[in-house]
């Protein structure tokens, strides 16, 4: 009984003919839920500015890890409809999957058409870029990913868990696509510790437990830790943005995406130590310009094959380490 009263008090009561109540509007404003893995401090900086720039839109943020965002969205979608109007995480394979299932609204922001074609599709485009690099001193540390298979780095390096960290999974897929599964096996034989997320990798670097990490460049920059851009290239992890078909305020969602591509929004992304996909914009403090950042070579259809083969690759990796 007390719980029923509590539930009743949790109700929002609206008076007037039911038909007049617009479900996704707050007053006269359209409400846009953005489900994102962007850092909270970046969102905190964006929030007042986007409110000022888009007076007709109320932006609500749900922030969590890419995988948790995806799980939440999928659960809501399966329950009937997710309120998310914009999804902006860092797992391109999920966007390819959503696109394949016909769950994304075709939309490319006008400004996004100028960025690298590899990072734009008809239904999702890259709004920020992250790179997986080597967390190690430039001198004396491994110079490239392939060095990690050498005896001098045995039991001295770690990464996040590809089964739960989207950025680490992208790295695994890139290494597999370019160097082959034998190389992945060599890394494992050489004592690859793959556990936790990027913060766990940094914790192991700082404690000396595993002094070398395969980790996000932006995490190293943010903490002022030594970073080595691998000579064989940093693994690019695009941060897509898209509008799910569940969205009930698609026009407002497009306005939010357009704003995310403005210089001021991109500057906030860069201030959060991530890269803007526009090479003309400044890199994050301490990082080389985007054009000078060597990129790990991946096949042209990398994201399509990665999305399709993700379950199999994860199972293969699990079988290897178990």
């Amino acid at each position, binding site marked *: *009984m*007390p*719980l*029923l009263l*509590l539930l*009743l008090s*949790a*109700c*929002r*009561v*609206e*008076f*007037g*003919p*039911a038909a007049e*109540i617009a479900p996704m509007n707050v007053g006269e404003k359209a409400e846009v839920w953005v489900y994102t893995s962007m*850092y909270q401090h970046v969102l905190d900086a964006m929030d007042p500015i986007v409110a000022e720039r888009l007076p007709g839109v109320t932006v*609500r*943020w*749900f*922030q*969590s*890890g890419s*995988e948790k965002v995806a*799980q*939440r969205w*999928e*659960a*809501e979608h*399966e*329950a*009937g409809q*997710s*309120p998310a109007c914009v999804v902006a995480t860092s797992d391109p394979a*999920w966007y390819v*999957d959503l696109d394949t299932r016909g769950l994304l609204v075709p939309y490319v922001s006008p400004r996004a058409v100028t960025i690298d074609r590899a990072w734009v599709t008809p239904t999702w485009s890259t709004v920020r870029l992250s790179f997986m690099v080597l967390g190690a001193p430039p001198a004396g540390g491994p110079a490239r990913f392939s060095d990690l298979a050498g005896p001098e780095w045995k*039991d001295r390096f*770690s990464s996040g868990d590809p*089964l*739960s960290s989207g950025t680490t999974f992208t790295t695994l897929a890139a290494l597999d696509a370019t160097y082959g599964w034998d190389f992945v096996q060599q890394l494992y034989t050489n*004592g690859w*510790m*793959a*556990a*936790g*997320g990027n*913060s*766990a990798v*940094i914790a192991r670097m*700082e*404690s*000396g*437990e595993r002094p070398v990490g395969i980790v996000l460049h932006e995490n190293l920059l943010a903490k*002022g*830790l030594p970073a080595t851009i691998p000579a064989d290239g940093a693994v690019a992890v695009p941060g897509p943005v898209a509008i799910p078909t569940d969205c009930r305020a698609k026009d407002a969602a497009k306005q939010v995406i357009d704003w995310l591509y403005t210089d001021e929004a991109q500057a906030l992304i860069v201030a959060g130590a991530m890269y803007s996909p526009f090479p003309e914009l400044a890199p994050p403090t301490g990082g080389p310009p985007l054009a000078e950042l060597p990129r790990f070579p991946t096949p042209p259809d990398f994201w399509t094959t990665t999305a399709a083969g*993700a*379950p199999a690759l*994860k199972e293969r990796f*699990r079988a290897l380490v*178990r």
Partner: protein
Amino acid sequence: MRFPTIKGPTVLLALVAAMLVALVGLPLLALLPRMGALHALPGEADALGNTVLLGLGTTLFALGIGGPMGFALARARLFRGADLLLVLPYVTPPYVSTIAWMMLANPTTGWLTPYLPVDIYTLGGMIWVLGLHLAPFVATTVRDALTRLDPALEEAAWLSGASRLRTLFSVTVPALLPAWVAAATLVFASTVASFGVPWMLGAPAREPVPVLSTRIVEVLELGWVQGRPLATSLAMVLLVLGLGVPLLLRRLLAGRAWSGARSVRPLVPTDKPWATALVAAWGVLAVAVPTFTLLVASFTDKGAFSLVHWARVAGDARIVDALSRSTVVSAGVATLTVGVGGFVAWAATRGGRSAGAVAGLARAGLAIPGSVLALALLLAFSQEVRVIVAERATFTLALADTAWLLGLAWFVRFLALPVDIVGAGTRNVHPSLEEAARVAGAGPLRALGTVTVPLLAPALANAWFLVFVGAICEVTLATMLAGPRTPVLGTMLFQLQTYADPRAACVLGVGLSALLVGGTALSRRFVR
């Protein structure tokens, strides 16, 4: 003389049952049709085996430490603050204490490694960390049961010539069986459903130690569409394990426990050197060592003394906001949970099978991993429910992204605690006491309120505290269900741990523990 007709409580029980069906049953039913990939279950035998070993090992370890600790607290004259020392590991978020043990006992650079052959990245390491975290469960439950136990029973045994040891095993231990079983079932269910500790310690091992809860998350990470059928099936296996083993334990011990009236003349605590030594050892191993490690970590940055982590926490205004919200919601959840769970426990102890079934439903929330529970609740409650009255007024129940949904989730999650803790207490209060009140003319609810509830006050208070602490430290449900406008401490801890600064999460964890212990000490002084 028995009083079989209890109409008031029966109606109340029916209402509670309906509420539990809506909150626990429906979300679980929402999962059932999503089960699949059963052919893959045999491949998960290693995870199932590890889960059973982890559950049993942690339960035995926690009983082995918590039982004597509870006895020491109830019967020995100890130094001031010993009871607070006891609960400190429980009020430290488990993954924060895990960070401390990783720093202490990782096989490469652990601070203890040069002196002791220890490796925290093992099944034993998980049992150690979870056992220390959950031993206070056992200790407080045993302590409360001993407080209720009539010392005349033990005195009678002594006067009959029984030795202290024989009295212990022939009188005290059987009298405490309900408390032992309650504590064991809670520890087992909490352990098999726990995710953070196995995730942090099982994955980095040279030979990783998968358990069902970590496998469920791994499988979900394969992709919702591909992974969900197997993840749901694994969750159901875990649910059966989390409910089945405790049920088996209760069945095995049924009839071996007996009731005793509450002590009217409690035993005067005496000096017991072994008890002082035990509590001191606990203080060093379970409290001082990890807390010192966390403090050192929190004051260190890049190998040098630094206040940067403390400054980050102190400078974040949202933490105060989250702390106040967490306190209010956790207190509300604890009060509601103890009220509902306590009633269910009483009804299950005094009533028939239907009440037992309601209690079983109430226990389900603790037996499934937080991430699965969160997804089930999202599936069940993520959509708005609208009731339009006379075409003029619309009642919209929109729980998603509100503190209400999180509160409901915590309610479901922690309802098992009062059900088992208060249930154990109820079994120690002989029905004759309530029957005496009924003979004197009291109705069933009045007898409950004036006789049983006062006698169960220690168990109710203990359950309230355990639920409150469990909720305020909870992370998994909070990260999935808390709304952007309603951050709670769990979401702040997750932010710091995952993105911003894991050592600042240590600061927050240590600060939270200090606040909880300080608050507990103050409230006790106030109550006195």
